[in-house]
């Protein structure tokens, strides 16, 4: 029996890679995220934002970043969040809606520590909490612009959407995208299918291949599982519209445009407020207007009329002429 326990222990220890990094610095930020800092989507985007702020503030001596990634397990994430709070970090970010319940348990115990979470709008003000920031992205805005471009670039007039789970900013993005397509090219056929997972790459491939088999030549999708889908559409010679992070370096022939989350302004604002003694109470929204969402283009040659239409759409959203609904009419 001892033998068995030993073997299991050794194997279990081997499998726990060092996942927590910590450095010294005056302003200390800690973040817990569901996927990895290299997922070229949700988690990598905010990590990149933190790195940008760090550079602007003067490097590691001015700001410390500690992160724990791959926290699919919400209970484990809660322990990690509490651990960071006990270690005295100035700002602790729970980068996922699923961590909300835990965060609201922990925050009251550390009134001098600032917390942030998203995508969410609840800062806990109703419960009398003043040390929580909330953030969300109006993903439907960027989705709409991507949809406008996709609608003009499809040759088959068939566009496929590879969705993870019908929730959160993934759903907002997809809803915006659909509205963009329909407003621009009402004849285009929209194929929508979900994988049921944020991380199952092969499931993303399966959905993408089915879209392609059904005739789609332009695809979009969101979450870290879409890498298989992008590879599939690139192999087919079709186009991809990305979100959350710039995916064109890996797939230069397929990725037309990526709506990228730019977290730096939001994060910088939070830090400024914390340093002036304001520990929470603000709900941020990443929009085109506040440059929380930007567009990155890859190597794919984009016809001038497409770019123009995208510009018009963005301008329309900024001016309020175009109103993008968060939910689709049933």
């Amino acid at each position, binding site marked *: 029996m001892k033998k068995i326990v030993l073997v*299991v222990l050794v194997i279990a220890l081997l499998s726990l890679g060092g996942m927590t990094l910590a450095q010294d610095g005056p302003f200390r930020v800690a973040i817990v995220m569901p996927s990895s800092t290299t997922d070229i989507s949700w988690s990598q985007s905010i990590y990149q934002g933190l790195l940008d702020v760090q550079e602007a503030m003067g490097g590691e001596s001015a700001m410390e970043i500690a992160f724990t990634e791959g926290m699919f397990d919400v209970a484990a994430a809660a322990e990690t969040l509490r651990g960071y709070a006990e270690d005295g970090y100035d700002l602790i970010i729970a980068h996922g809606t699923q961590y909300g319940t835990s965060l609201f348990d922990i925050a009251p115990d550390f009134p001098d520590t600032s917390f942030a979470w998203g995508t969410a709008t609840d800062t806990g003000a109703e419960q009398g909490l003043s040390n929580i920031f909330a953030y969300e992205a109006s993903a439907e805005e960027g989705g709409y612009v991507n949809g406008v471009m996709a609608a003009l670039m499809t040759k088959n007039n068939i566009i496929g959407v590879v969705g993870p789970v019908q929730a959160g900013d993934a759903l907002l993005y997809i809803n915006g995208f659909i509205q963009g397509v329909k407003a621009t090219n009402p004849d285009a056929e929209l194929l929508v*299918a979900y994988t049921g997972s944020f991380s199952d790459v*092969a499931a993303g491939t399966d959905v993408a291949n089915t879209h392609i088999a059904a005739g789609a030549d332009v695809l979009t999708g969101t979450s870290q599982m879409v890498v298989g889908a992008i590879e599939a559409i690139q192999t087919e010679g079709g186009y991809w519209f990305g979100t959350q992070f710039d995916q064109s370096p890996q797939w230069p022939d397929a990725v037309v445009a990526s709506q990228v989350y730019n977290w730096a302004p939001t994060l910088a604002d939070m830090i400024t407020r914390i340093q002036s003694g304001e520990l929470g109470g603000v709900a941020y929204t990443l929009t085109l207007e506040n440059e929380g969402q930007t567009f990155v283009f890859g190597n794919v040659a984009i016809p001038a009329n497409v770019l123009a239409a995208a510009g018009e759409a963005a301008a329309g959203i900024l001016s309020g002429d175009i109103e993008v609904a968060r939910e689709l009419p049933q």
Partner: protein
Amino acid sequence: MESSRTLLDILIAASGLTLAAATPFLFAALGELFAQRSGVLNLGVEGIMLMGAFTSVFVISDKGFNAHPAVGLLVAMLVGALMGLMMAFVSVTLQAEQGISGIGLTLFGQGMSTLLFRVLAAGVIVAGGVEKIDLPVLSNLPVLGSIFFHQDILTYAAFALVPISVWVLNRTTWGLQVRAVGQNPQAADSMGVNVARVRYSAVILGGVLAGVAGASLSMALTGVFQENMTAGRGFIAVALVYFGGWSPWKVMAGALLFSAANNLQIWVQVLDVRVAGAAIPPNLLIMLPYVLTIVVLIFARERQRREPAALTKPFERGEN
């Protein structure tokens, strides 16, 4: 919103996609079948697949050695063999509890592939992958040609492996020994069969095929590697062995059924099939292959009678 695709087109496309999607399951499940027929339940398939998936894509990608896909496959087989050897050592030589050892191996594979991925690749690996091969003449057949003969080489290999497995089990000395040590190792031992050697070889073969399964998932099916990309497929492969009652043909039927059900639910989403005008919630559809598998398992009672009698039981001489 009109479309020109016919039901036949859809069926052809769906059939082809199903065969491709079934490939990793088939490799992993056939490998597991050999291990289980020899009396070893290897729950480490998931971990071996992950390691096979990572190593193969890594060596063929520009982050690694830009090697030929055949080299990637070979590396995955080697890694699978090594992890199979680990499983055999722990379960056959140390006689540890097989379920726990297998879970340990899966945890090891998950942790190790993630660690290597971060250290060596630092980000999604795109490999380009294995190209589809049209079999000459056959691929020109109407309907059948585009379903069966427009696949990548690993898919052809996976399906060829089914009759080969049947043949090996029934027509070779080693196959007979595998069946014997899985049912009654005492009897095999008393007949001069080296039980440990047979189990080692079966588990290692299982590891090799799990490695190939991983490679087929990353190199061929998706063309990328991402952390934990097997997403439980190794465990489904183990379930398919039970589902198929330890028979290669029925395991193949199970792999096809599961993949077909999964592809069907995607088509239902893609074509926006509605029931009485209302869309079917995707979450419900995504469960379909799993529900179907459970339903079939409930009705497949024959399975209990064919289970290798010595499955999960370590062999020690003179124990009876």
